[in-house]
C-alpha cells in the first residue's frame, strides 16, 4: 500500500539479496533517503550497485528485509501496482536506451503516451523538458544523429517528463567524456534544485569529489561508508 506523505522516499531495512547461484549481492543493508536529497552510490564493479538500483525499480525482489520506495512496499506490493511505482520514478541508464526508430520528440513523448496522458499535455510537457535539457531545436532528430551526451540528455528528458519524485541513474556518465559528463551533472543539479530526489550510481571519482553530496559506498554487498557530504574516498 502507498502512503505518500512519508519523508523517507527510500527506506531500506536489513535488505539482503542473495542470487540463485548463491552470490551475496547485498548483505543487511540499511539506508534512508529523504525527499530532495542528492545521493551518490559508489563502489567498484560488482560491489552491489546494480543490485541496489534493480531493487529500487523492483526488477528483482530482495531475499529478506524491508524496502519502501516512494511509499510502495516493494515486498508486499502486487504486480498490478508495479507500473504506478515505475511512474513515480525516472530511470536513466548508462547506455541511454532510446528507441532508434523514433525521433527525439517521440522518444520523450513515448513515456507519456504509454501512461495515456492527454495529447495536449504531452505536447506541452515534452517541449518544456526538451528546453530543460537544451534539445528543443533537435526535436526532429533521430538518436543516431546525436552525440552521446545529447542522447543521454534525451534520456533525462524522458525520465523527468512525467514529474517523478525520484530520479534513479545507473552510471549515467559512464559512456561520456568528462566535459559532457559535467553537462549531464549540471542538468541533474537543476532537477534536484526543484526538489526531485536523485540517486545516482557511479564510479566517476572526479564528479563525486567535486559535487560534495551525500555518498553511500558499497563494498562486497555492505555499506562501508555513508557521509552527508563526502568524496569518492578511495582510488579507482
Amino acid at each position, binding site marked *: 500500500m502507498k502512503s505518500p506523505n512519508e519523508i523517507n522516499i527510500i527506506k531500506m531495512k536489513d535488505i539482503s539479496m542473495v542470487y540463485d547461484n548463491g552470490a551475496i549481492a547485498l548483505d543487511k543493508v540499511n539506508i534512508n533517503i529523504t525527499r530532495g536529497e542528492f545521493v551518490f552510490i559508489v563502489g567498484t564493479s560488482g560491489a552491489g550497485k546494480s543490485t541496489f538500483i534493480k531493487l529500487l525499480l523492483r526488477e528483482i525482489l530482495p531475499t529478506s528485509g524491508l524496502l519502501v520506495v516512494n511509499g510502495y512496499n516493494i515486498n508486499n506490493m502486487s504486480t498490478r501496482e508495479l*507500473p504506478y511505482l515505475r*511512474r513515480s520514478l525516472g530511470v536513466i541508464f548508462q547506455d541511454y536506451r532510446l528507441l532508434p526508430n523514433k525521433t527525439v520528440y517521440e522518444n520523450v513523448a513515448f513515456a507519456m503516451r504509454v501512461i495515456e496522458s492527454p495529447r495536449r499535455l504531452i505536447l506541452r510537457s515534452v517541449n518544456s523538458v526538451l528546453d530543460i535539457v537544451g534539445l528543443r531545436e533537435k526535436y526532429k532528430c533521430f538518436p543516431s544523429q546525436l552525440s552521446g551526451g545529447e542522447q543521454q540528455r534525451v534520456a533525462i528528458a524522458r525520465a523527468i517528463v512525467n514529474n517523478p519524485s525520484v530520479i534513479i541513474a545507473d552510471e549515467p556518465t559512464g559512456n561520456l567524456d568528462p566535459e559532457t559528463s559535467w553537462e549531464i551533472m549540471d542538468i541533474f543539479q537543476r532537477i534536484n534544485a526543484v526538489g526531485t530526489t536523485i540517486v545516482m550510481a557511479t564510479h566517476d571519482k572526479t564528479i563525486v569529489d567535486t559535487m560534495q553530496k551525500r555518498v553511500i559506498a558499497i563494498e562486497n554487498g555492505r555499506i562501508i561508508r555513508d557521509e552527508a557530504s563526502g568524496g569518492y574516498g578511495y582510488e579507482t
Partner: protein
Amino acid sequence: MKLKTSEYFIKEVATSLKRNNWMSLASIGTVTISLFILGMFLMIVVNLDRMASTLESQVQISVYLKDDISQKQSEELKEKLEAMQGIDSVAYISKEKAMERFQERLGDQKYLLDSLDSTNPLPNAYEITVKNPQMVKTASKEIEKLPGVDTAVYAQDVVEHLFDLTQLIRSIGLAIIIFMFGATIFIISNTIRLTVFARRKEIAIMKYVGATDWFIRWPFLLEGVVLGFIGGSVAIILLRLSYLALTQKIYDMMTFFPLIPLYPFLTYMTIAIIFSGIIIGALGSVISIKRYLKV
C-alpha cells in the same frame, strides 16, 4: 481504454504488419493451412458421423413368423410388437410380398426360382425399425421369446462394426483437431515472438516508464488477432469452395449419399473457423510476449 490509445494501438499494429510483411504473410499462410486442414477434418468427421447414424437408423429387425400360426395369432403378435418399448414401426410383409421382392432383387437371374415351381418357401414376416439402434440386440432377443415367432434377425455384424467405426472416427477426429489447434497456436506464437523479440528493448523501456502489461500486450494481441482473422478468412473461403466442389462430385456419382446439407453447416463452420483463427492468434501472441514482460 481511451479512444486516443486505441488509435495508437491500431497504428502500432499497422506499422508492425507492414514492417514484417513477409513474416506476417507467412503467419497468415500457416493459419490458413492449419485451419484448412482442421476444417477438412471437421467436414469429414461430421459427414462420416452423419453417414454412420443414417446407416444406424436404417438397421431393422426381421421377425419371421412360424408357418402354422393363424391370422388372429399374427395380429395379436403385431399388437404385442407395437406395444414394446423403443419400437418405431412394425410393417407386415406377407410371404407373397417377400417373394416379389426376392424376384426383383434377383433381376436377370429370376430363372433360378423356376425350380421351386409354384411353392413359396419364404415365411410371413414383420419388419421392425427401432428408435435407438443400440436397442436392436436386446429387442430382437425379446421378440424371439414371443409366441408365433420363428426367428428375429438383424444385420448384427454391420451394426456392431458401425458403432465401433463411428466411435473411432469421432475420437481420431477429435484428437487430430486438438493437435492441429495446438500446432497452430505454437506456430503463431513463434511468428509473433519474432516481432516481440525485435521490439524487446521497446517493451523493456515501456516497462521502465510505467506502462501496464496490458498496454504493452494490446498491440501484439491485436496483431495476432488480425493475423488469425485473415488466415481464418482465407481458410474458410478455400474450405467453402472445396466443399461445394466435393459435394457436387459426390452427388453426381452417388445420389443417395447422406451428406450434411450445406446450410446451416457451412455457416456454422465459417463462424467456427474464423473464431478459431482469432482465438489462435490471440493465444499465440499472449504466449509469445509473456517472457518479455518480466522486466
